[in-house]
């Protein structure tokens, strides 16, 4: 006679109502990536520029000889620009497989057979990538601002540049949203994460290369709207109140970014389904 019956038992506990499934997806996704040593290494390296900047701020505030290193709003703008390379690597590492791997393993029908909407699924996946991207953009920039206040021992710089906190937040949000939605849309197009990574790199470098060729021919920066990196840079300069690098009007750049996000949304709406219908 068995001591404990390991048969099936009915469940008598409570179940949460719908709407929280995306949190489960995001939590599990974040946990999965934090368990990977290679990814932790990438995160660590992505914070290296932060430490360099922190040393710069320390020197500027404590050593009179290094006063020329004193931070300006441009310092923060440049810092976020430098982080773009890590944004690229994190996007490819985390984002390429987010939906592609689920499609390869037919996991979508598992997800969508649970009380979970397609929007919740997409939002859950998007939140994974956005959280990690915020970890290499928004978080170090904000901590850098706090470091400046701490080393200076006063709020003078912060008060004089009060727009920096919202500027860092808004620019990071625009950058992270654009990159994450584009990558997620590409991830939904294939079952191979490797292929998605290559495709993403191709889109980024191809648009930049086309702009480079056109610039070489026309000697004008008014066609910079072709490049997504240039559009982002243009918006960044507007947000940080810096001189614009390109002749393209910033609303055009903003429209291009918004257009990319909308197109990504449309692709996700079509591709994330519980059943693949080939009519």
């Amino acid at each position, binding site marked *: 006679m068995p001591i404990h019956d390991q048969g099936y038992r009915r469940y008598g506990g409570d179940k949460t109502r719908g709407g929280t499934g995306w949190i489960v997806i995001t939590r599990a996704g974040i946990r999965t990536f934090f368990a990977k040593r290679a990814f932790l290494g990438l995160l660590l390296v992505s914070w290296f520029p932060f430490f360099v900047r922190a040393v710069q701020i320390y020197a500027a505030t404590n050593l009179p000889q290094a006063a020329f290193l004193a931070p300006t709003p441009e310092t923060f703008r440049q810092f976020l620009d430098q982080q773009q390379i890590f944004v690229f690597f994190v996007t490819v590492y985390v984002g390429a497989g987010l939906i592609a791997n689920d499609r390869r393993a037919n996991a979508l029908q598992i997800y*969508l057979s649970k009380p979970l909407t397609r929007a919740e699924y997409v939002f859950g996946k998007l939140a994974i990538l956005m959280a990690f991207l915020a970890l290499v953009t928004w978080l170090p920039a904000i901590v850098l601002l706090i470091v400046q206040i701490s080393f200076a021992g006063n709020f003078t710089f912060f008060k004089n540049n009060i727009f920096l906190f919202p500027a860092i937040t808004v620019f990071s949000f625009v950058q992270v949203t654009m990159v994450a939605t584009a990558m997620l849309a590409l991830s939904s197009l294939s079952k191979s994460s490797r292929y998605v990574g290559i495709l993403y790199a191709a889109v980024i470098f191809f648009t930049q290369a086309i702009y480079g060729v056109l610039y070489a021919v026309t000697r004008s920066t008014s066609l910079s709207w072709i490049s997504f990196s240039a559009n982002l840079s243009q918006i960044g300069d507007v947000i940080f109140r810096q001189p614009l690098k390109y002749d393209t009007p910033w609303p055009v750049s903003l429209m291009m970014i918004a257009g990319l996000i909308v197109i990504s949304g449309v692709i996700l709406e079509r591709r994330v389904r519980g059943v693949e219908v080939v009519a």
Partner: protein
Amino acid sequence: MTEGDPVVTLENVSVAYGKHLALRDVTSSFSSGAVGLLGPNGAGKSTMIKALLGFIVPERGRMRVLGVDVAESPLEIRARVGYMPESDAHIPGMNAVSFVAYCGELAGLPGVDAMQRAHEVLFYVGLGEARYRNVETYSTGMKQRIKLAQALVHDPDLLFLDEPTNGMDPKGRDEMLELVRDLAHNKGVNLILSSHLLPDVEYTCDQVVVMDKGAIAAAGPIAALKQPRGRVYELRVKTPTGGIEAFLQRLRAAGLDCHATDEDVMRVFVPGEGGARELFALASAERVQVRHLRPSVPTLEDVFAHAVGEE
């Protein structure tokens, strides 16, 4: 929904993939307990299940699951049903217990309860010892079991099992059928078992809905469908060379239903009271020797063959 009400109802449901009509104006109901959804490949069984889950929106018609309208409250339905898909499906990069617990959490269980139930259902489906292995390393049979586990973890009121014995070896298949039967008959879980395998449905289910070419061909309790409205015989004959076709045509023209089985024996359904006498008369008229004639009990196979017009 009260006890005794059907767990699933469909009213004039049509589903199309482009120009191809996968479900044609289907009206049916599935009572509580274990119901088999039987039909050949391409009959529309999986399409029906996917429509009931809200994966596919029908061209027209109305569906209710557990008394809830599919079009109005698909999430409420999905919280109360479990779905075991036909194809291999898992969440990549997870071991079995994490995968099943994750599915439980997605279905609304608190984290601790989901993990506890994941362990329980994995033992129940026979994967207790392999629960810390990555699902991607599982054999086909184990993958079938884990699909059942993820469908069960949140204790659904209704289970949709789409070809649960696909790709399993005979021993694994028997064990899977035993689990399905236990769930339906001892654990009080309503289930709809989609299969093209008659023995699977006959062993596990009390009722059957037979589908063919996107329409319902027959439905009802298996026992009632097997009730003879005539007589069934096993028949082996010797005919002049090439004469068997003529004899079969003669049988069909006389309203007798016949289809071949293994070992050169055909099963002949004789409606009405004519019985063996009618068979002998027809054989005599065609100059066919009856070598073997034995009354038989109607099987689900007869019901199925009769319903889908199989020869």
